[in-house]
């Protein structure tokens, strides 16, 4: 019994259990046919966005550097992984080919992550953001113009195309590996070092942390997972074009990370699921759905961050009121009418 309690107190374990439940429900729906076509088509992209958001969170949330080129990492992994997979498609079955392809995609993206991480050592804040954005655009442009990747017509991935049912197990494994690795990094000595660099680089350096090493490691790890997710994603389509993976997509991933909460693995997972499902949920709005998405985005930011609206929000959130009630009663009991400090 104590053990069960401990597991539930452990936030990471709860996240993993919820994620497992989520995928169990999806698998059940997929195999029993209780699922619409649109939703089936969402499963693999949704898994990819979870991996992208969680890995971007390592750069933005843990290391505190703004990265506007995450889609570029993913694009490199997608094209390199899929090219390998196409080359092997005659000789190897999916079960050996896809992990190999994901690994190759991840490694290629990781090498590129190292290349992008280099300027990150010299640049700060918005300057780094613009360099990552530029790198993403360079990747898009180069892949679009190379003949090996199919040029502007896109890469024909017909030979390696697999459906949602075939890809789901790999997607689940990738999502779990990414989430567990990130949770582990967050709790480890290395993770604390990364967050120390975020909070105060000079202080971190002065106690002997190797800033160069950690910054490069963060970029390489984040790029690796993005690349692996890209390789998986490529198998879900019959044709992939690099122009789809532009700065707009990088921004989409960043939106997921920020809405989910900087540095929160669970937040990134939930936000990735909700935000990829949102346009589908708003399908009834027809042409208005992107408009609704934009309005929801702005209102969410205003509601969670505006000092003026915060008091309004606190009045209408029941959880807060209940908590407040408990605290008031508790405080009253202990201090017998003592004043409590308001706000956070």
């Amino acid at each position: 019994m104590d053990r069960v309690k401990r597991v539930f107190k452990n936030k990471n374990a709860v996240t993993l259990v919820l994620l497992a439940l989520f995928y169990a429900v999806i698998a059940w729906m997929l195999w029993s046919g209780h699922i619409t076509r649109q939703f089936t088509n969402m499963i693999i992209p949704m898994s990819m966005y979870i991996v992208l958001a969680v890995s971007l969170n390592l750069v933005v949330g843990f290391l505190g550097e703004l990265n506007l080129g995450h889609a570029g990492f993913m694009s490199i992994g997608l094209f390199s992984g899929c090219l390998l997979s196409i080359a092997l498609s005659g000789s190897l079955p999916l079960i050996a080919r896809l992990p190999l392809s994901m690994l190759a995609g991840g490694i290629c993206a990781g090498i590129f992550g190292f290349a992008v991480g280099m300027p990150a050592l010299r640049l700060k804040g918005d300057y780094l953001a613009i360099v990552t954005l530029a790198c993403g655009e360079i990747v898009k442009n180069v892949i679009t113009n190379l003949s090996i990747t199919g040029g502007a017509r896109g890469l024909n991935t017909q030979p390696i195309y697999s459906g949602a049912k075939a890809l789901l197990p790999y997607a689940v494994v990738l999502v779990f590996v990414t989430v567990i690795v990130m949770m582990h990094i967050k709790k480890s000595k290395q993770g604390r070092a990364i967050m120390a660099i975020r909070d105060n680089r000079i202080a971190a350096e002065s106690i002997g942390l190797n800033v160069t090493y950690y910054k490069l490691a963060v970029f390489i790890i984040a790029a690796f997972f993005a690349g692996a997710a890209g390789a998986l994603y490529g198998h879900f389509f019959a044709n992939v074009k690099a122009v789809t993976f532009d700065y707009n997509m990088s921004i989409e991933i960043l939106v997921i990370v920020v809405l989910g909460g900087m540095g929160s693995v669970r937040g990134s997972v939930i936000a990735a699921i909700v935000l990829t499902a949102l346009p589908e949920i708003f399908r009834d709005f027809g042409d208005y759905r992107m408009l609704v998405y934009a309005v929801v985005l702005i209102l969410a930011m205003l509601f969670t961050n505006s000092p003026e609206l915060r008091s309004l929000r606190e009045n209408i959130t029941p959880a807060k009121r209940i908590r407040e009630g408990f605290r008031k009663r508790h405080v009253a009991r202990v201090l017998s009418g003592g004043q409590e400090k308001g706000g956070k």
Partner: protein
Amino acid sequence: MIEFIKTLISGLGLGSIYALIALGYTMVYGIAKMLNFAHGDVIMVGAYAGIVAFTSAGLPPVFTVFLSVAACTLLGVLIERFAYKPLRGASSLSVLITAIGMSYLLQNLALMIFGSQQQAYPQYVKLPSVTLGGITIDGITLLTLGVTALIMIGMSLFINRTRLGKAMRAVAEDRGAAELMGISVDKTIALTFAIGSALAAVASICYGLTYVYIKPTTGAMPGIKAFTAAVFGGIGSIPGAMLGGIALGVIEQMAKTYISPLWADAIVFAVLVLVLVIRPTGLMGKEVQEKV
């Protein structure tokens, strides 16, 4: 040689448009310390305002220009008032996301109202091309260059010589201290957005007259390029934005003519990365000493 000069001049024309947009980015960044991602879309709104005013309503060119500028200025001030002002003091990333949301909102509103088909911007200014020593220069390019030069001189004078300009510089340097000196920070920020958006309207007119076709996503790419230009020149620095914009435009046209139009974007961004790696604060950005 003739081709080189022609490329240079068309590059200057493109660079002028980037510089006008980059000015808006850099001023807002300098004063409100935020990246206004919706700035590129203000240009698109300005261009559609021009189409509505001239093609649909049949207004004369002078009124069309006036209406575009007025619409953008109003839009800029409204965006600031309702989307950014409530977030004063929030983390810079949440402001960035709000700006991204605003950019989506503007694009999708335009998509709903005007449809996804591209529309022709009315060519209400017709200028004969000028031939000088075997080089033919498009009239509109000359107009763009002239207008940009005038605006840049005007902006420099405004920022450096007037009381309002001084207030803006003060807010950019230290918001708290400026407030203590009796400068209304809110008004100064609103003014910055108004000026930035008005410049975007001018850019939209130059863009429309040069490139003719307008779509709801028209503002995105020039917006990103101008943002790049602003960083290239050193974000927050007004001469930097002008220089960065023009440099970016010239590099882009040169790459298009001499290397390949397909690779132009990659080359522009590669040059940017190189410059930033060599000079981490941009061409004219100030190096801020870190204090422990």
